[in-house]
């Protein structure tokens, strides 16, 4: 293995352009004659549009068009979609309302778009947007998901009576009820998983170009999955046929799930680019990001766990109300169901689980997948409950976890998942050591002398990554396959281009994917180019989310690479008059094992293209593609330990140490993996201590619509982290990878809250645990 092979701390190839200001994000792309779009948005949570008068706006300088929902409907364009069908307990399909790209009759949340102004400059469009007169008839709104199903609550979509989308069950209700009857202890909890706003620092943006000569469109877009965007825009919305639409996701400034979705704005820009005959660009202002980037979490849950006399978990019952917002997005239905209910077993051996999730519409922005997506909600519930159970039953919280850990694999849970690997004892053991658990009593004593309350909280998690295999996803209601594609193209001179359907928006694919090629061929990462994010270059791909680009995307590249290697060996064997089985590839050479005969990789690739002397039946060229569909989800797991000090006078909580020990399977580049964990932890700590999306309960106004109101974690709010790994290789894919993108955000929130509970002695701590909440918990 070379210095830039797998498992090495290889510095990122992509960094140079970012640190010198040469990154190319959507808003950076200049095209001639581009116009600017500004959206007119609803100030009301729920209102009927009586009339739109655009005459004054249209008369303003530089304005080309003011387009409304009526115009959009007249062009017979379709609704945006939800990509996952969920069936209710009674067998009925979920009740989905339309999701128009511009509201025609009714606005359903503050920020819903009612018109778009297209002008020569952004300033002209903004000025004109202020002059679009919209006559609204305000309607009563419902913001609280629990009240949304009340009789007499305002109705949001005619398709969904009582705002009820589905009530989805998982597990065996009768068996779980029966287990509860024999319980020695039952522990109950009510938790709210606070609503979050993703806040990628690059605002969403679109640049749409219609080419009249080719009758085709190009969309540059802040997307995590350009091919899926193209598919939705062509097959469902009907803006353009798939072969006449190119979607490019250039450098993308963070996604965290929020850029998976196909949003109204890019749809409208594409459509408008043909209507006005000029390219149309739009970049969100941060307030628009707060109002319209798909929000996250927002669960209200009651759960009960039954234990036998020996403190073994014998049953788990969960009832969750999930707020979906006013419209369903691509994964809105999958996130609170198959990404949540299926992970309720956590690291614990449970025979009986029953969970019901009721999804409701409210007059708020869409809610969908965000870093972890469902799994943080499951982990938070489970780890709060286990900790509470230990306190109520008077047993040690570490021992209670250990007693209930799953010890052998594969392990079939009662909620679909078949865990393929893990060693949960090893994780907690290492975490206890790195966190110096033994020293905790002394540290508590010392803090007490300073008037501080010190506490430590645990959380263990398991998550399912890769969102695969396709057949399983399809059987559960998923609308697309969850494979990934790759193409490995060797040029005549021996350098390599890899085309991947994965999309990098910070994950470092250009480096890690190149490491695989460098490792196998011995040619150095500088000789490998990773091509991604352009539907004209990569034939198809599913994009990047759910920590799938390692477990699925990289294994697809491996599969294509193996085909290239096999062909190169055939050619080399022929040229060196050796047996194919005797050829080995190492150090950039194809060698005949046990001899001094060798050819440079470039010599073999050149021979493949000159084709002057190829083996019988071998086609010229050296290029292979593959589609890789995994055989199972992957199951990263971990144990996170948070230690806090609370100031009882102010309620201020400081994280004094945070230890994360994770099992990600094999690690391709430890530097990048650690970076992923740091970021995930900070987002999770953000959820636990700082972030909360608040709507006014009556008016539906977003009260946290700027960085002054929505508290993003800053550098001084979080510590430097202590990380450890305890690895069990993933048996479900050739590279043994489990994925690491979401773990930090999944594992950390309950460990933070459990630490504050340990410090304060009050378990009345809700997220975000603001100083006020903590102070009130301490002082009643």
């Amino acid at each position, binding site marked *: 293995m070379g210095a830039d092979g797998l498992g090495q701390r290889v510095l990122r190839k992509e960094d140079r352009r970012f*640190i*010198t200001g040469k990154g190319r994000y959507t808003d950076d792309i200049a095209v001639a004659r581009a116009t600017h779009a500004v959206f007119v948005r609803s100030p009301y949570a729920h209102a009927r549009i009586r009339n739109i008068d655009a005459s004054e706006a249209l008369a303003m300088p530089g304005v080309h068009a003011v387009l409304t929902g009526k115009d959009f409907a007249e062009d017979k364009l379709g609704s945006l979609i939800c990509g996952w069908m969920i069936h209710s307990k009674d067998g009925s399909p979920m009740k989905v309302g339309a999701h128009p790209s511009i509201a025609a009759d009714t606005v359903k949340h503050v920020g819903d778009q009612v018109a778009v102004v297209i002008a020569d400059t952004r*300033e002209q469009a903004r000025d004109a947007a202020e002059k679009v007169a919209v006559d609204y008839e305000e309607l009563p709104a419902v913001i609280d998901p629990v009240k949304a199903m009340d009789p007499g609550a305002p109705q949001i979509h005619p398709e969904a009576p009582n705002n009820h989308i589905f009530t989805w069950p998982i597990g065996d209700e009768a068996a779980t009820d029966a287990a509860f009857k024999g319980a020695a202890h039952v522990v109950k909890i009510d938790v709210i998983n606070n609503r979050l706003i993703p*806040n990628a620092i690059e605002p969403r943006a679109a640049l749409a170009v219609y080419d009249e000569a080719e009758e085709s469109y190009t969309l540059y877009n802040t997307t995590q999955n350009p091919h899926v965007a193209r598919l939705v825009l062509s097959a469902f919305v009907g803006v353009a046929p798939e072969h006449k639409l190119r979607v490019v996701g250039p450098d993308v*400034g963070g996604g965290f799930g929020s850029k998976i979705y196909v949003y109204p704005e890019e749809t409208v820009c594409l459509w408008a680019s043909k209507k006005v005959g000029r390219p149309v660009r739009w970049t969100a*202002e941060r307030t628009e990001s707060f109002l319209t980037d798909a929000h996250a979490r927002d669960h209200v849950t009651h759960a009960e766990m039954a234990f036998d006399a020996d403190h073994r978990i014998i049953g788990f019952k969960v009832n969750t109300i999930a707020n979906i917002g006013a419209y369903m997005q691509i994964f809105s239905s999958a996130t609170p169901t198959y990404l949540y209910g299926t992970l309720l077993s956590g690291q614990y051996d449970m025979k009986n689980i029953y969970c019901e999730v009721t999804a409701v519409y409210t007059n708020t922005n869409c809610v969908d997948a965000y870093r972890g997506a469902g799994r943080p909600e499951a982990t938070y519930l489970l780890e709060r409950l286990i900790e509470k159970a230990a306190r109520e039953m008077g047993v040690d919280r570490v021992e209670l976890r250990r007693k209930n850990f799953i010890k052998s694999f594969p392990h079939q849970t009662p909620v679909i998942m078949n865990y393929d690997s893990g060693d949960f004892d090893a994780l907690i053991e290492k975490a206890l050591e790195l966190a110096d658990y033994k020293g905790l009593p002394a540290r508590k004593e010392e803090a007490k002398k300073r008037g501080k309350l010190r506490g430590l909280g645990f959380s263990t998690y398991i998550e399912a990554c890769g969102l695969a295999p396709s057949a399983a996803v399809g059987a559960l209601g998923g609308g697309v396959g969850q494979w990934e594609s790759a193409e490995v193209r060797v040029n005549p001179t021996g350098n390599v281009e890899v085309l991947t359907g994965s999309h990098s928006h910070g*994950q470092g694919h250009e480096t890690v994917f190149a490491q695989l090629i460098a490792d196998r061929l011995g040619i150095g990462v500088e000789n490998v180019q990773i091509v991604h994010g352009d539907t004209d270059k990569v034939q198809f791909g599913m994009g990047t989310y759910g920590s799938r680009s390692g477990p699925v995307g990289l294994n697809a590249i491996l599969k294509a690479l193996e085909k290239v290697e096999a062909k190169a060996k055939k050619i080399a064997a022929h040229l060196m008059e050796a047996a194919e089985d005797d050829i080995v590839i190492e150090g950039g050479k194809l060698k005949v094992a046990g001899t001094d005969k060798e050819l440079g990789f470039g010599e073999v690739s050149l021979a493949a293209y000159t084709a002057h002397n190829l083996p019988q039946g071998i086609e010229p060229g050296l290029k292979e593609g593959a589609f890789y569909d995994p055989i199972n989800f992957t199951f990263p797991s971990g144990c996170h330990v948070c230690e806090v000090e609370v100031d009882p006078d102010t309620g201020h909580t400081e994280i004094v140490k945070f230890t994360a020990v994770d099992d990600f399977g094999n690690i391709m580049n430890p530097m990048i993996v650690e970076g992923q964990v*740091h970021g995930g932890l900070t987002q999770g700590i953000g959820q636990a201590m700082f972030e909360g999306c608040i709507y006014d309960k009556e008016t539906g106004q977003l009260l946290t619509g700027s960085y002054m109101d929505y508290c993003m974690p800053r550098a001084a709010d979080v510590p430097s982290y202590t990380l450890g790994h305890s690895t069990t290789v993933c048996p479900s894919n050739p590279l043994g990878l489990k994925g690491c993108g979401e773990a930090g955000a999944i594992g950390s929130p309950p460990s933070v809250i459990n630490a504050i509970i340990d410090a304060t002695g009050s378990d009345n701590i809700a997220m975000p645990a603001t100083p006020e909440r903590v102070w009130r918990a301490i002082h009643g």
Partner: protein
Amino acid sequence: MPRISMTVNGRQVSGECEDRTLLVSFLRENLGLTGTHVGCDTSQCGACVIHVDGLAVKSCTMLAAQADGTDVTTIEGLAKGDQLHPMQAAFREHHGLQCGFCTPGMIMAGIDIVNRKGGANLDEKTVREELEGNICRCTGYHNIVKAILDANAKMSGAQAAE
């Protein structure tokens, strides 16, 4: 429209802009220097930090006209040819960036921190507090802090040697 001129990355530039044009828009749209980013338009995220007359400024909070006659440095002006500024090099060495969007502002802010507070006494706590005006959603700040401290050591050492 008023005509303004300034020095940007060592080059004299001039252009016309509306009174209300923000400095960041002038840099990005008139000069094509798209390395300076807009993340929030409300002066909190810090993606637009540049140096004006040697001090860190959020360029979304300054009118282009206010910068008339000043000396501006943006992220594009830091490296000397292939030679990266020590802060740029440290961000790469310590993996202080992921998506790269906040990075130009972070690097410009980092240099400003070292300029104002650098030297043997610059510690992690100070760096974290000084980064109040720069938000990163990817890195959790861990490696950004490491990068700034490492660059401080190199920049301070270099200053001492000069």
